[in-house]
């Protein structure tokens, strides 16, 4: 078990945003957290990396590799972020500092986490770009020169650069059109197979993950209403809200919603 949450509640002032959320993610799995905007799923994901503003109070335990993140000092937290835990966000434009090249971004993270050899860093950066299907030319280009899909690829390269144990992908395909989003997901699935990291995938549209996720949790108004294996949730939903979500989204294929038939048992 890589991440487990024990009765986590998050409040901002009087208002309870997350209410007693328990869940755990096993090593190497793709865990999808599905919920509408405002359900608190992004706040929960930020709480894991201690990225919330000061006015949010987190209660309960968030255990990453058996270590309670809430009890760590800011300095210890910094070494965890990036190395064992990394993020990819929805807003691909905002993820990059506009006046620094993609290469500079990639190098910075290695430098911060202790790789001091300049040549080695560059080689590793270019390797990382290749591994997400971007060629060497992008190393020296600026963020605005890349398309949304390319930027999101670069974000994946950065997030996986230091082989984190847990990758939190927060709505990474939402701002992209369905074709680019699809390709990003394929890439992420391929990378997961290669390096075996765990993925916490946050999305509002279960169609994005139905092919890749192992387990799904449905979140509504700060509470997890239903969670379980993909097949169980999508093909045999129990909670009314899950049914509503599934009903609201059109799909094309026939067969099971979880897409199990199409993927097979690879």
């Amino acid at each position: 078990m890589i991440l487990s949450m024990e009765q986590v509640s998050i409040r901002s002032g009087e208002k309870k945003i997350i209410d007693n959320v328990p869940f755990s993610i096993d090593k190497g799995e793709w865990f999808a957290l599905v919920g509408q905007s405002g359900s608190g799923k992004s706040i929960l994901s930020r709480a894991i990396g201690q990225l919330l503003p000061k006015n949010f109070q987190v209660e309960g335990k968030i255990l990453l590799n058996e270590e309670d993140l809430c009890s760590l000092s800011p300095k210890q937290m910094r070494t965890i972020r990036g190395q064992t835990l990394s993020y990819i966000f929805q807003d691909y434009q905002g993820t990059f500092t506009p006046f620094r090249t993609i290469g500079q971004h990639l190098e910075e993270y290695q430098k911060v986490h202790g790789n001091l050899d300049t040549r080695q860093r560059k080689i590793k950066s270019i390797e990382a770009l290749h591994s997400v299907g971007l060629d060497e030319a992008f190393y020296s280009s600026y963020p605005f020169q890349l398309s949304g899909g390319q930027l999101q690829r670069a974000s994946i390269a950065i997030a996986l650069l230091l082989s984190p144990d847990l990758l939190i992908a927060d709505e990474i395909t939402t701002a992209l059109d369905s074709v680019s989003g699809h390709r990003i997901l394929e890439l992420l699935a391929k990378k997961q197979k290669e390096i075996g990291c765990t993925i916490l995938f946050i999305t509002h549209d279960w169609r994005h993950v139905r092919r890749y996720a192992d387990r799904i949790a449905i979140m509504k108004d700060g509470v997890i209403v239903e969670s379980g294996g993909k097949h169980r949730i999508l093909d045999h939903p129990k909670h009314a809200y899950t049914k509503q979500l599934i009903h609201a989204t059109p799909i094309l294929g026939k067969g099971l919603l979880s897409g199990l038939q199409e993927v097979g048992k690879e």
Partner: protein
Amino acid sequence: MSLLTVKELTKSYQSGKVAVDYLSFTLNKGECLGLVGESGCGKSTLARCLLRIEPINSGSIYFNNEPIESLNGRQLYSYRKKLQIVFQNPLAALNPKLKIKDSLVDPYLEYAKELNLSYFSFTSKAAFVKQLLEAVELPSSLADRYPHEISGGQQQRVTIARAISIEPELIVLDEPTASLDVISQRAVLTLLTELRETLNLSYLFISHDLAAVNQMCQRILVMKEGHLIDEFNRRDLFDNERHAYTKELISIY
């Protein structure tokens, strides 16, 4: 009977980029025609050309068998009252400083003299706004609110109400659900289908979501890099003759 016919339409930007390349298609009266493609394929540019906001390079556009690509002044004005658009981002499409009711009656006040409404009737502004809000299943108490005070799904319903307020013949829907969450998406799509039937409208539904297009439309066009690469009836979606790109799109959903 064809309502809109586009023939060999070409549009390129000053930078030399060809956004729409030699595109031809027909939209029939009463039909919902889907246009699918990824971002940057030229589908939004096409919408702007149809609205006559962007000048076109060559080709022709017929609306009710009349060429409209070179209309000006008075004739353009009467063309525009038959055509409305709903954009992706409803918050940008509503003036933040105007109350919902003022945004709603804007098109009607402009065309009031030439309109002959059959479904709605303008007795007073308040009654008209109430009718429109009812038509899109919104409470009439929203009339006095500002756009930022209501949810995204409600905003999009308001822009739809504005579009149908002058009972146009064709509505161009440019990704109308892309910025909404899945439950509102479903509700808005259902609403649009109902409105099409009650008001006898035609839609050009532009989207990157093939599943949504398939739910809404009778016929589907697939666009890639400015070209029209596939055109088919909904029932032929899974046909083996589909273009490889269409098959890829299908595999996503």
